[in-house]
């Protein structure tokens, strides 16, 4: 006769084993079609135990400047997204039922529409004779068409439109968790609304802000389709160099080295912002 404690432990262990058996196919998939290929690629970069490919990447000014440009673009996209997303998230969190439903639809429909479709639409909108330039000219706001396509402006506009929902949604989720009674209490104690917002609501929403920033920065750093189509070859991001190395030059070890750099920078930034987020969460708790 086993004691009840022992049999419960046994049942617990059987439960764990059953759960693990449940998850095994998915973990195998992640191992075989994700972890192993990525690690295999990374190992190509140090083939033969030499770091020559990393040296090439570090010494050739082109690659360093493209990585720098990619970081700058990612930072700019993140900053613009934050400035645009916060008012939207705040408005959504205070909107009524119908307003919130409509707003979420206007946010989620573009979010789930193919990046390619949206990028194509920007090609139509931003060209010399595109919709935007035509409208601005018809309204008498400009004389000559603005250069909006095949340059940095086009890339930024397209990327911000694609990545904006990734910023709005976490901030919105964080704002929903903030008890509106808190800012009401601050106003009841005599704080003007803007101060109640700045001192009470805004700090409590910072977890969402940093989650959104981490996501947008990381996604834009590795972005490919939008800069490739809207940059017109004049804006080069590191993902485009990686593609070129594989497709045109078949230089796998060098592509692998560039991938390793991109992956390292991505993980480092994600980890860094994640750490700030967790710190914020502890404070909020």
């Amino acid at each position, binding site marked *: 006769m086993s004691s009840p404690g022992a049999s419960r432990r046994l049942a617990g262990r059987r439960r764990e084993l059953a759960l693990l058996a*449940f998850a095994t196919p*998915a973990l195998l998939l992640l191992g075989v*079609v994700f972890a192993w290929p990525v690690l295999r690629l990374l190992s190509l970069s140090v083939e033969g135990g030499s770091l020559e490919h990393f040296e090439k990447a570090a010494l050739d000014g082109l690659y360093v400047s493209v990585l720098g440009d990619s970081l700058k673009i990612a930072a700019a996209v993140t900053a613009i997204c934050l400035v645009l997303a916060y008012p939207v998230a705040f*408005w959504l969190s205070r909107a009524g039922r119908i307003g919130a439903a409509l707003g979420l639809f206007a946010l989620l429909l573009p979010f789930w529409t193919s990046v390619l479709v949206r990028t194509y639409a920007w090609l139509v909108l931003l060209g010399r004779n595109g919709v935007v330039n035509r409208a601005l000219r018809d309204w008498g706001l400009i004389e000559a068409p603005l250069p909006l396509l095949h340059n940095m402006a086009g890339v930024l506009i397209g990327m911000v439109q694609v990545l904006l*929902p990734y910023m709005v949604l976490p901030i919105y989720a964080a704002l929903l968790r903030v008890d509106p009674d808190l800012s009401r209490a601050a106003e009841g104690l005599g704080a003007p609304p803007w101060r109640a917002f700045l001192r009470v609501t805004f700090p409590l929403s910072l977890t969402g802000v940093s989650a959104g920033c981490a996501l947008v920065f990381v996604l834009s750093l590795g972005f490919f389709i939008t800069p490739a189509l809207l940059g017109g070859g004049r804006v080069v991001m590191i993902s485009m160099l990686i593609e070129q190395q594989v497709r045109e030059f078949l230089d796998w070890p060098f592509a692998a080295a560039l991938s390793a750099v991109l992956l390292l920078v991505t993980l480092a930034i994600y980890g860094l912002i994640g750490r700030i987020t967790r710190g914020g969460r502890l404070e909020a708790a």
Partner: protein
Amino acid sequence: MRRHRRISFGRILLGLVAGLVFAFLMLPLLVVFPISLSSASYLQFPPPGLSWQWYLRYLDDPSWIEATLRSVKVAALCTVLAMGLGVPLAFFLVRSRLPGIRLLDRLTAAPIIVPTIVLSIALYGVFARLQLIGEWYGIAVAHSVLALPFVVILVGAGLRTFDEAQEQAAAGLGARWPAILWRVTLPQLRPSLVSAAFLAFISSFDELVIAMFLSGAEMTLPKKMFDNIMMEIDPTIAAVSVLQILLVGLCLGLASLFGRGVLTTTMTR
């Protein structure tokens, strides 16, 4: 009185800014509708007249239809794989008390963080060796890795709000585990399951970067569109885009009617 007016002024300003940003988000979606109905023979805005010619051209061109069917097949298999493997994985990640569970949680979310271009060329190398380039099921398997995190996050969120005492009650009444899962747990998770399936389908149907490397000459719809945009911008793409937008709108509508938690796909955990 004065204070009241200032609040409402701030509210109007906020509403105005939010409205402009919503307009910016919707603008690219809205602009393709009139272009797709253009009667001009090349890209012209505003269109000089209306016609269905670009939709007809899409329907009459076997290569567009083939690409569309291939994408539907890929997305369907991807959905089956992501659901079939992701739902059990979500149970494991939510309920297991193994010490390494946090690490596996991270591994599951990793396909979102790792840049798609890196994953694409990594898979390209492996698939080329296995001679899987151009095979539609290869793309589906690769896409299921990207869809898996969506499924796990949505279903996991549903599972966390599920009261496990119901399963214990069913077990106490003599039900066996498969029956409990099938008759008690899964029916209550249905909203999360529906959302997860729709989003897995769309995420694969829209995916371009992986398909670019793995599809070879056997193009998926996004790959065919990409090539077409690079060659010539004719309004056929606008017609295809409209159909895609309508499909996504339909999926979103259905998911919000029958599903739950479409919002939680923002990876905010």
